[in-house]
């Protein structure tokens, strides 16, 4: 056995040829997602952004799914070693490994979605989704008959919690006595779990539902669809098509647009390391309403939402972290 093992290793050493120097000068963009790009939400949006970078900017792109910290750091390092210009790490969890890897690869720009700290070549991409969920929340506060609203989260992640805070504060701005409920599924995959969570809330009197649970949220829409009088609000993308008569509005994070903006700066050489923060003002975060249901809005609501939007953009209305339900 031992001799065979030695032979095997010898083969490996011979095979370890000089593979690395494949340096290229063209701008190349890579995306690392922490989940499947078929989730119709968070990762799908990023992948769409990557394709737009390829199609409209003509850059060469690559993507990989890396679920664990070990795989994530490996992927960051591999792309950097291959000379990619920009590497998107699509989630807060890429912050620490990106900082570690960035020291060794000063020529690669690491973009961390939902990150927090900026370094010479590490750039956090911050989405102030709560600015949009605030507006969605206002709608829910106005539309609710029962005075109860609910939120289904995939996991208790910062952007998800913040989105929840905006949703509750928006609702309270319209209807101060509103009661809110929240459930975390601990999964982004299990649509049946999302549905049961939503149904449990509906039984408790909730008639306005919002989510941030990616693929598992499909269950939330399914629950709303079959429960008369329940309305639902999309997250991340414009999700009206999932239930055209039930989706009042969506809090949209236009990930493709944000990715495109960053990539364009890099291509044009105008990129400078800073916290790339997107809110309502940028157009990356926005409220997408369902025109078919606008007729059912209470009178004057449209004006109030517009005013709130202006205040948020102007900085006079701030959404605070940490809402008690």
């Amino acid at each position: 056995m031992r001799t065979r093992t030695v032979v095997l290793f010898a083969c490996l050493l011979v095979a370890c040829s000089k593979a690395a120097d494949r340096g290229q000068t063209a701008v190349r963009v890579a995306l690392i997602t922490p989940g499947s790009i078929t989730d119709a939400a968070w990762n799908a949006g990023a992948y769409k952004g990557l394709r737009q970078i390829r199609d409209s900017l003509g850059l060469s792109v690559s993507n990989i799914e890396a679920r664990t910290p070990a795989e994530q750091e490996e992927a960051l390092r591999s792309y950097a070693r291959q000379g990619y210009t920009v590497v998107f790490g699509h989630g807060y969890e890429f912050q620490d490994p990106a900082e570690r890897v960035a020291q060794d690869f000063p020529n690669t720009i690491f973009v961390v979605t939902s990150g927090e700290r900026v370094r010479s070549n590490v750039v956090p991409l911050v989405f102030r989704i709560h600015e949009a969920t605030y507006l969605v929340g206002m709608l829910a506060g106005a539309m609710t008959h029962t005075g109860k609203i609910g939120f289904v989260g995939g996991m208790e992640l910062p952007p998800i919690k913040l989105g929840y805070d905006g949703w509750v504060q928006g609702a309270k701005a319209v209807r101060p006595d509103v009661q809110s409920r929240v459930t975390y599924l601990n999964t982004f995959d299990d649509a049946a779990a999302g549905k049961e969570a939503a149904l449990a809330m509906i039984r408790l009197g909730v008639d306005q539902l919002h989510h941030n649970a990616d693929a598992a949220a499909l269950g939330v829409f399914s629950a709303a669809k079959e429960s008369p009088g329940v309305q639902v609000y999309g997250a991340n993308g414009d999700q009206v098509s999932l239930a055209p008569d039930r989706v009042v509005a969506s809090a949209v994070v236009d990930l493709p647009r944000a990715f495109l903006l960053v990539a364009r700066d890099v291509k044009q050489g105008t990129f400078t390391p800073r916290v790339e923060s997107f809110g309502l003002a940028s157009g990356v975060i926005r409220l997408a309403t369902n025109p078919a249901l606008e007729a059912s809005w209470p009178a004057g609501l449209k004006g109030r939402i517009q005013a709130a939007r202006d205040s948020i953009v102007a900085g006079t209305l701030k959404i605070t972290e940490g809402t008690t339900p």
Partner: protein
Amino acid sequence: MSDPILPVAFAAAAVRVGTPLALAAIGETVTEKSGVINLGIEGAMLAGAFGGAAGAFHGGLAVGVVAGTVAGLIVATLFAIMAIGARADQVIAGTAITLGVTGLTGLLAQQVWGSAGAGLSLPTFPAWPLPVLEAAPFIGPVFFRQSPLTYACYLLIPATAWLLFHTRLGLEIRASGESSASAAAAGVAVGRTRTLATLFGGACAGLAGASLVLAQVGTFTERMTGGRGFIAIAIVALGRWHPWGVAIASLVFGGATALQYIFQASGTVIPYQLFIAMPYLLALAALGVAVGRHRGPAGLGRPH
């Protein structure tokens, strides 16, 4: 829970959540009664979910149900070839098949629906209230305003009990599971009997997966079964390898799951992870206390 309709809603949710578990567990009961433990039913269930979704996407609900069942059957066939035909270790063959099906359904889903996923494009079964029965107090809304697949499950429980304990085939299945050598000496074709029982289990798991898609969420997502097949295996032990016991255990498990959503939504300071772990902890405790030394079929897991 002061709300008067809440107990009913909770019980109805327990039945709904318990349905796919019961479907898979009843099939697995027959499989285990024949002496085969199939950890691949998690994979068969996932395949059933995919088959159900793809079938319904292309041909409507009925096609979905059939396609889901057939998909589970195909996975079980693969398992039977490994575990019965080749006499491979059942636990490991089942684990491997689940692993492979997880990958395969992910790949196939991308082929069918592209990277955008299935969305909510699939038809689903509405609740079919059963005339007369649905009017019964409590029982009616809990048990008889469910999807047709839940009713299928109601039929399957006594049918399986009858099959196992009142038919020639059931006798042969039980004999194969107790002692394959003695069964063979009595003229039972043990391999064929076990294969049949395994295929039945696979078809049930496929149907369970399809019910998850077609009676519950109306979509397919990668890894959407989330370990329900494994839970079904625990349920078989909890139900002491008897269809009625398994039905009750499924209901208890469905109840524990439904309860955790109600607890969470009701707002508590207890970490939500405790609720998520609750059904599993409950199953462990029940295995220790309720099942005890009841070991199930004597020949379980032993190749013939």
